[in-house]
C-alpha cells in the first residue's frame, strides 16, 4: 500500500509539473522534432519565491517571538503554581510508616486484605475539582515484554480472541487450561489497592469524601476500544470458559458488580491501567472529587485520613506507591517545566534580538562608512 502510494504520488507530481508548465508557457515546442519542450518546469524556470533570511527579516521575528513567549511562559508558570498538589508515599518502606506491616507481611495467598491508614494535613484548601492519582515508581510499564503482553481484540470483545488469546500474552495466556480473560501481563498486574479519603472535621468525626470513579479513562477507550464480549449484559455468561488472571482476586466481571456500565473490560480503573505509562515513574488517575458547591472548597484545609487496602506489592522490585491529590488547570496537572521553558526561550529570543540589532546596526554603519571612500 505504501509503495503504491509513494509511486502514485510521485507520478502525480511529475504530471502536474509538466501540465502546469505547459499551461503557463503555452507549450511553445509545437514542432514535432526532438526539441525539448519549452516549459517552465522542464527548463527549471518555474516561478519561485526566493526568501532570504537576513538580519532585517529575522530581527522582528525574534522580538515577536520573545514578546509572545514571555507572556505565555509567565501565564503557564502562574497557572502551574496555582495548581494545588499534594503527594503522599504510602509504600511503607520506613518502619515508622503506617503501612510498614502491610508491606512487610505481604503474601499473594492471604485471603484477608491488609489495611492501613495514613494521616495527612492539607495546608491550603483545594478549590476546584480535585483529581486523585496513584503514582508508582520504578515500575516498568513501558518494558517491551510488558507493553506487548495484551490482546487488543480480546479487549475489544472479539469472542474468538476471548477464547483463544494472542500468543503475545504468554506467559499470562492460559491458566489451568482455560484462556485468561483479560490475558497478558498488563491486565494481570492491575493496580488493586483501594484508596479511600476521609476528612477529619473540627469535631474529630471522619467524613468520607465521595470519590467518583467515572470519567477517569479516555472517552474513546471506554466507548470504542474496550468492549465486553456479548454486550454488557450478563457478563458472567459471556466470560464463561475463561479464567481470571492469576494475580487477581476476582474475575473480570466482578470488577464493579454494582454498575454494569463499569464492569468487565470497560471498567475504567482497568482501562486506565491498560494505557501503559511512558516512563517508569508515573501516575494514573484514580478518582475524581467533584466540587459540590461554589461556596465551599472541594477539599478544605485540615486533617485527612487516607485508608488503604494494601493489595499491591512493590517492594520486591524496589518500587514506591504514592497517592496524589491535584487540581487541574487548562494545561493539565502541575508542571512548571513549560512555563520556565517558555520564559527562557522567550528571553533568549528577545536577548538575541537585541544583540542582533546591535550587531546589525554596527555592521551597517561600518558598511556605509566603508562605502563612502569608494
Amino acid at each position, binding site marked *: 500500500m505504501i*509503495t503504491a502510494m*509513494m509511486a502514485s504520488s510521485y507520478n502525480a*507530481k511529475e504530471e*502536474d*509539473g509538466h501540465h*502546469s508548465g505547459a499551461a503557463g508557457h503555452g507549450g511553445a515546442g509545437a514542432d514535432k522534432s526532438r526539441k*525539448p*519542450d519549452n516549459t517552465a518546469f*522542464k527548463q*527549471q524556470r*518555474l516561478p*519561485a*519565491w526566493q526568501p*532570504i*533570511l537576513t*538580519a532585517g527579516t529575522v530581527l522582528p521575528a525574534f522580538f515577536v*517571538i520573545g514578546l509572545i513567549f514571555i507572556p*505565555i511562559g509567565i501565564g*503557564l508558570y502562574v497557572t502551574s503554581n496555582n495548581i494545588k498538589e499534594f503527594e503522599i508515599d504510602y509504600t511503607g518502606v520506613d518502619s515508622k510508616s503506617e503501612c510498614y506491616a502491610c508491606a512487610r507481611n505481604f503474601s499473594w495467598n492471604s485471603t484477608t486484605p491488609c489495611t492501613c491508614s495514613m494521616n495527612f494535613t492539607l495546608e491550603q484548601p483545594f478549590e476546584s*475539582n480535585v483529581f486523585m*492519582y496513584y503514582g508508582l515508581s520504578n515500575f*516498568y510499564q*513501558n*518494558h*517491551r*515484554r*510488558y*507493553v506487548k503482553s495484551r490482546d*487488543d481484540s480480546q479487549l475489544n470483545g472479539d469472542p474468538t480472541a476471548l477464547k483463544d488469546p494472542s500468543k503475545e500474552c*504468554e*506467559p499470562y495466556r492460559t491458566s489451568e487450561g482455560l484462556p485468561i480473560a483479560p490475558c497478558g*501481563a498488563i491486565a494481570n*498486574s492491575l493496580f488493586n489497592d483501594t484508596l479511600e479519603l476521609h476528612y477529619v472535621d473540627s469535631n474529630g468525626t471522619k467524613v468520607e469524601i465521595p470519590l467518583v470513579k467515572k470519567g477517569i479513562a*479516555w472517552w*474513546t477507550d471506554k466507548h*470504542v*476500544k474496550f468492549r465486553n464480549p456479548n454486550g454488557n449484559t450478563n457478563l458472567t455468561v459471556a466470560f464463561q470458559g475463561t479464567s481470571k488472571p492469576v494475580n487477581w482476586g476476582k474475575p473480570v466481571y466482578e470488577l464493579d458488580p454494582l454498575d454494569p456500565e463499569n464492569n468487565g473490560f470497560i471498567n475504567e480503573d482497568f482501562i486506565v491501567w491498560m*494505557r*501503559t*505509562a*511512558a*516512563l*517508569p515513574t*508515573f*501516575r494514573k*488517575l484514580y478518582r475524581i472529587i467533584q466540587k459540590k458547591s461554589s461556596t465551599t472548597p472541594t477539599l478544605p484545609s485540615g486533617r485527612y485520613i487516607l485508608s488503604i487496602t494494601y493489595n499491591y506489592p512493590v517492594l*520486591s522490585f*524496589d518500587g514506591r506507591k504514592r497517592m496524589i491529590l491535584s487540581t*487541574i*488547570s*487548562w*494545561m*493539565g*496537572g502541575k*508542571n512548571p517545566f513549560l512555563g520556565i*521553558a517558555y520564559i527562557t*526561550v522567550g528571553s*533568549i529570543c528577545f536577548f*538575541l534580538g537585541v544583540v542582533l540589532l546591535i550587531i546589525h546596526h554596527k*555592521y551597517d554603519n561600518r558598511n556605509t562608512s566603508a562605502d563612502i571612500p569608494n
Partner: protein
Amino acid sequence: MLRRRLNRLLGGDERRVDSRTVYVGHRSSPDSEGFIPPKFCDNRIVSSKYTVWNFLPKNLFEQFRRIANFYFLIIFLVQVIVDTPTSPVTSGLPLFFVITVTAIKQGYEDWLRHKADNEVNKYLVTVLEDGQRIRKESEKIKQVGDVVEVEEDETFPCDLILLQSSRDDDTCFVTTASLDGESNHKTHYTVPDTEKDLESLSATIECEQPQPDLYFVGRMHIYKNNQEPIVSLGPENLLLKGATLKNTQKICVAVYTGMETKMALNYQGKSQKRSVVESINAFLLVYLCILVSKALVCTTLKYVWQGKPGQDEPWYNEKTQREKDTNLYLKMFTDFLSFMVLFNFIIPVSMYVTVEMQKFLGSFFITWDKDFFDNEIKEGALVNTSDLNEELGQVEYVFTDKTGTLTQNNMEFIECCIDGFQYKHRDASSELDGFCVTDGPVSKLQQKAGREKEELFLRALCLCHTVQVKESTEPCLDQVDGLNNQVDGLGIDGDGLGIDGALSHLEEQRGFIASSPDEIALVKGAMYGFTFLGLESKTMKILNRNNDVEYELLHVLNFDPVRRRMSVIVRSSSDTLLFCKGADSSIFPRVRQEEVERIRLHVERNATLQEGYRTLCVAYKLLSAGEYAQADAGLREARLALQDREEKLMAVYNQVETGMSLIGATAVEDLQEEAAETMEALQGAGMKVWVLTGDKMETAKSTCYACRLFQKSTELLELTVRTLDDENRRREEKLHDLLLDYHKKAVQDAPPVKEGVTSWSSSQDYGFIVDGASLSMILNSSSDSSNSRYKNLFLQICQNCTAVLCCRMAPLQKAQIVKMVKNSKGSPITLSIGDGANDVSMILEAHVGIIKGKEGRQAVRNSDYAIPKLKHLKKLLLAHGHLYYVRIAHLVQYFFYKNLCFILPQFLYQFFCGYSQQPLYDAAYLTMYNICFTSMPILAYSLLEQHICIEVLLDNATLYEIAKNAMLRWRPFLYWTVLGLFHGLLFFFGVWYLFYNPALQDNGQVFGNWSYGTIVFTVLVFTVTLKLALDTRHWTWINHFVIWGSLAFYVFFSFFWGGIIPFLSQQRLYFVFANMLSSVSAWLVIILLILLSLLPEILLVVFRKPRGPHSRQ
C-alpha cells in the same frame, strides 16, 4: 583508422594467433584429403544477461551483492528470525520495494537487449547453398564458410569477405553509421581474380583467429585448373557485421560469425563509474559504528541493569518459558541483534532509493534543457549515466580533445597560398571576386602566381583525396551539365567566378563522401577551378572549365596519422603524376627546400596568429615511367605481404614520396562556436583545461591561442622533442634539466597559492606544452626512481599552469595522462570531452566523459554525457553540474541528519524502559517516516533547488568552485551530525520533562507511552521538514505543495491511523493523536521544541549571510 590503432594499443599483446582456414561454400579443396570441417561457433549474438529462467535467482544474487542491499537483507532476516521490537514489515517493505524496482528496471533493460539480439538474430539473409538462394534467419548461418548474398541497404549478418559485387568496378560502398556513427561511405573491394561463377569456386581463406582488432590480414587460395593463385586479403575486403551495404548487391563469404565477429569482440561492457558522492560510504561507516556502539551500549547496560535484584523479572512481568530456557549468551546475542534492528533506521534504505531517484529524475533536466538543443543536428543533450550528475559540479581538470572538439569538424575552405601568394575566399557573394588576392605583392592579376601553378594546385586538390561522389542522385550529372555554363565562369583569373549560390547548389546536388571532412572542404575549395565528378573504375573524372579530364587512378597512398599525409598516383593522358598533401611538418622535409621558405611564412602565420586555421601543404612530383614501375612493384609486393604489411607499405610510401615540389598550402577554418568563451568560463570557474591532441604542436598551439587558453601574457614552458634536441647532450639529461628548470619557475617561484584563491589571480600565467614523445620519456623513463620523480615534477608543473597542451598524443597516452592526474594527490575530479573514437580511451578513464557532436555513435555509447556543441559544456558544468552537486550533497547530509534525530530519541528511550527494546514510535510511524512523511520534500528539494539562479551561475563562473567536494567533507558532516544529535536530545528530553507529570489533559486524564512517542514524532516530522524549508532558497509551487502537503499528510495519516476509520479501533494508537491535539500542553511543547530546534539554524543563516559569497543582488 585511429580506431584501428586504438584497438591495437588496447589489445596489448600483439599475438597473431594461429590462423583459421575457411572453406568457401564448404567445398573442400582438391588437395586436402580428409576434409574435416573445423568447428566454429554459430552466428547467434547474445548480449543479454538473463533468460526467463535464470532471471530471478541471478538478478537477486547480483542485487544482494551490493553491500547495502545485503545489509538490509540481513536486518530483515534478523527481524524474521529473532523476536525483535519491530515487525519485519518495517524494513522488509522498503527493501522489497527497492529490490523490485531495480529488478524491473534491469529486467526491462535486458528485455530490450533481447529484443535487439532478436532483431539481429532473426534478420533474414540470403544464403547460397548448392546453387540455390535460401532465405534464412541470421542466427542460422551455421558455419563459417557459408556464402551469403547481401542486397542494397541490408546489414551484414557477420564478418564477410567480399567475393563479388554487382558493380563493374568490383567495389561496394558501406556505411558504418550503426557502428560508429560515421555516415561516410567507405569503399570496399572484391577479392581480385575471383571467377564470376561462384558455383564452381573452390577456395580456402586463411586468416587470423577472431580478435577485437579491426585490422585484418588473410589470404585466399583459389583452386582452379590446378593453378593456385594466392590473393591477399586486407581490411578493404572485409565487411564488418553491423555495417550496411549501400547501392550495390554482392556476394560474400562468412569468415567470422556470432560472438566471434569483430563487432561482438569489440563490444565491451562499460565499466561502472562510481560517483565520488559515494564518499557517503564513509559516512555510512560512521553511522554503522554509531549503530553498533549504540546496540552494544544498550546490551551491556541491559545486563548490568538486570543484575540488580527484582529488575530482570518482577512479578508483574514474568518471562515466558522459552525465554527462561534460552542460553544466556545466546540471549545476549539476540538482544544485541534486536537493538541493531531497533536502531537500524539510522541507515535508511530509503536514502539509496531517494538518491537513485534524484539522479535518475534529475538527469531529465539535462535532456530537457532546450539550450542544449542544436538545430543543425536536431538533437539535444544525452545522458547515458545518471550516476554522475553531481560530478559535473566538482570538475577540477578538463581534458579536451582538439580536433572536432575545440575545433569544428565541419570545415570551410578559407584561403590558400599558391607559390607564396595568398588567396582568400570571401564570404560576401556580392563581390564577384569570390576569390581574390589579399596578400603578397599588392597589385592585381599580374602579380598572382603563375597560371600553371594555380591550375596545378587546384588540380592537386581535386585529385589528391579519397572522396566519393554520391551517385544515387542520377539527375545530378545532368544538373552538372546544366550548370556547366555557370561553372564556366568560375575561372581563376577573376572573370566572374565564385557564384556561391551556384556552388552550394552544386554541393547539395552531389554529396561528397569522405572519411575526413577537410577532404571535402578541399575538394569543394578546388571547385573554384576544377570540379571533381567522380571516380569510375579507377578513373577520376574532373571537370576543368568545359573539358572533362580523366585521370587514371593508379595508387592511393592512404592517409595515416603517423605519416600525416596522403598521396595519389594518377596518370593523365600525358604523364604520371604523384600528388601529395599533408601536414607541413611531414611535407616540408620531402620537398625541395628552396620552395619551402615562401610558404612556411604563410603556414606559420596561419597557425599562430590567426584563428587557428588548419593548414595542409600540397606537393606534387612527376614520375617517370621507370620511377613509376619501381613504385608500382614495391606497392604491390608490400600489399601482398602477410606479415608486417604495414611496415613494408610504410617503407614503400616513404620511398615514393620524396623529392616532390611544393605547390601551395591551404587553410581551413575550424574553431567551434563560442569555444573561446567556454574555455574562459571554465578557467574562470577554477578548472584547469588541458588540451590533449594528436595534432602537431603548431596547430594545437594556435588553437589554444584562438581559444584564449593561452593569453599573450602567458609564458609558455615547452617540453617537446624540439626543445629536447640538443647536440651536446642526451635527451634524458636535457629532459631532467628542463623539468627542474620549469619546476623552479612554475612551482617554487610562484607565490604560495592560498586556499580559495584561484590561479587566475596569480601574477604570472604559465602554459605548458608537452608532446607525446617527451611524455613517454617522462612516463616510461628507464630507472624506476627517476621515473616517479619525473612524473611528480611533471605533475607539479602542470598543476601550476593555467593551461596545459599535450600534442601528438596517441589515444592511449591521452588516457594515461588522465589517469595520472586522476590518481594524483587529492584525487581531483577529471572530465574528458572529445568527439570521436580516438577519445574513447580518455573518456572512459576520466570521472566524467563527455562526447560532443554528431560523429561516432560508438563513442557516444561509451560516454557519460553527449552534448551537441562545445559551448554547451559551460551550462552543463556551471549550472547543471553545480546545482546537482549542491542538491545531492544536501540530500545526503540531510538524510543522515533526519535519521539521526529520528533514532536518537528511540535510543534514549531505552534508558527509561529497562533496555527492553521498546520502540518509542509506533510501527507505522517507523515505516512511514522515511517513505512518506519526509521523503518527498527532500526529493523535491534535490530536484528543484537553485540556491543561486541559473543565470547568475552562468554569469559568474567563480561561483562554480566548491573546493574539493567541500559539501561532503567531514566538517559539514559533523555539523549535520551535531545538529541531528542536538535535535534528537531536544525532542526526547523536552517531552520527557513534560511527562514528569503525564496528566496533560484538562480533564485530569493521563497520557501513556504511545502519546509520548507521538508527541516526539510530531515534533520530529515538523522540525525536520521545516529545517528543509529553511534551507530551501527556491520555492516553486512544487516545493510548497510537497512540504506543506507532507505535513498535512502526516496529520491526516495520524488521524486516520488513530482510528477515524472504525476497523482500526483495535490499534494501539487508537485516538492517541486526537487526544494529543486536545491537550494544550502538548501543543505548547510541540511549538516550543520546533522553534527551539530551528533557532540555532536561523541564527546561523543570519550570521553567515552578510559574509557569504553567495549573496545575490
